[in-house]
Structure formats: C-alpha cells, structure tokens
C-alpha cells in the first residue's frame, strides 16, 4: 500500500472545525433521560410528568441516533470495520488498476469517504432505503454467520449507479463499443455487466474470499 501523504490538504472528507452535532445531539438528549430513568429505578416509581419525559426523551434520543447511524454508516471506514469487508476496503488502495473499485477510488472518481455507498446505493430516497435495508441484512448475516466465501452481490449490480456519472460523460460516449445498440440493450436488460468482458472485476477475487489484496 502506498504511504499516505500527511497534512490537512489530504484529509477526505475535509474536517470541519466544529462540534459534530450529529453525534453530540443523541448524547445530549440521552443524558437527562438516563437521570430520569435512574431516579425511576431507585424509587420504583415515576411521577406522570417525569414518566412522559422518560418515554419521550429515550425515543427522541434513538430517533437522533438512527439519523446518525444512517448518515455515518456511509463512511468507508464503517464498511471496512466488519472482518469480511476489511480486505475489500483495503483493496481500494491498489494502484495497479486490477479492480474497477480501486480505479475509481485511487483516481478520486468517487468521493473517497463514501466510496462504497456511492456505487452500492441507487438514486433517490428508495436507493438510500434499499442500501440501508441491505446493510441491515449484512449485519444479520454477519452476526449469524449465514454467508459463504467468496462473498457475492445479492442479485445483479444496478448499472444505473454507473450511468448516473458516466452516461453524460463525453469520454464514455466516445467509446465505439458503448455505441453498439446490441451492447446497450444487453446492459440495460441486465443480461450483461460492465465488468468481466470489458472492464476489470469490481473487486479482486482474493479480497472477496477474505484474503488480503496485493497492491
């Protein structure tokens, strides 16, 4: 792996010199709730006003917490924090052009802080919803050990995730193969994918099998 150059210019996403309210708010709401609940635990009774606060504040804290998890789980470091995904995230740094994901990541063609989420979520609110639902299933499968190596995409990759950026690019439109009506039909029918025949695999095989990718 290449040495990472030091300095604030190379930090991605840029660090905002401010309070991280996304993380602070759930804690700020949770703390008074903890005090009320401890009081209820000791006394075995909660007056009506405190009982309402004891119901509303934890619910509000969890609502804010869910927003935080939804937002911050887009981070590449979050994706790589599960053992099965760690080799895949590490392989993003390979500069030999051996995988499509690494090409996009090392050339800065996707936001490096949210590279996984950028390609693995569809557009619009339902794209986000589907990605989060898939993430929940990933967690469930990880906890129960119900997955096999090499890990594989559930279904076919949504080519719209590629076309969202590439379709309007002149360099993409200029490629002769992309102008072929048969190829266009095959890609849009999902009978063919970008990877394999024309472009390198999305991720190196050794990363999908849990091993370490070489760079």
């Amino acid at each position: 792996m290449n040495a990472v150059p030091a300095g604030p210019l190379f930090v991605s996403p840029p660090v905002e010199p401010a309070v991280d309210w996304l993380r602070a708010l759930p804690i700020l709401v949770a703390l008074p709730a903890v005090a009320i609940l401890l009081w209820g635990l000791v006394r075995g009774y909660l007056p009506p006003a405190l009982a309402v606060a004891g119901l509303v504040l934890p619910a509000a804290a969890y609502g804010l917490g869910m927003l935080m998890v939804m937002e911050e789980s887009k981070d590449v470091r979050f994706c790589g924090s599960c053992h099965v995904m760690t080799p895949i995230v590490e392989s993003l740094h390979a500069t030999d052009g051996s995988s499509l994901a690494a090409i996009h990541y090392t050339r800065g063609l996707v936001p490096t802080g949210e590279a996984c989420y950028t390609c693995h979520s569809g557009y619009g609110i339902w794209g986000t919803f589907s990605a989060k639902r898939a993430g929940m299933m990933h967690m469930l499968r990880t906890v129960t050990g119900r997955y096999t190596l090499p890990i594989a995409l559930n279904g076919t990759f949504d080519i719209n995730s590629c076309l969202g950026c590439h379709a309007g690019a002149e360099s993409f439109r200029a490629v002769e193969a992309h102008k072929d009506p048969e190829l266009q039909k095959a890609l849009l029918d999902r009978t063919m994918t970008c990877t394999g025949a024309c472009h390198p695999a999305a991720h190196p095989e050794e990363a999908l099998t849990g091993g370490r990718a070489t760079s």
Partner: protein
Amino acid sequence: MIRVACVLALIALAILILVAVRLDGATATIFSFIGIPALVAAMGLYVLHRWRTGAFHPTGTSRPSTH
C-alpha cells in the same frame, strides 16, 4: 415492572451513547439488534404498567399506582 422498564431503557441508552462515541459494524449491530428491541420492550412494559393501573380505561379514572 417500572424498574424492569427503567433497566431496559438504560441498557438501550448506554448502547446509544456507545454508538455515538464509537460507530463501527459491531456497535451498529448491537444498536440495531439489542438497543432498539430493548427500548421498544421498555416502552411496551411502561404502557402495560399504565394500562394495568387503569390509565387507558374508558372511564378515564386511573387507579393510583401501587409503586
């Protein structure tokens, strides 16, 4: 019953604070599969307790809590 509800809610809030301090796959899994069910169970227990003490009865008169 109130004490059990408080304990469950406190467990849920402890998990929430842990997630806010250190979010990764492990803590997010605990948040989703232990924290949220614990909070829902706590709220359910509290509502059940209130119902048993007459809070939601049609007469609108609730018996005083037996603590």
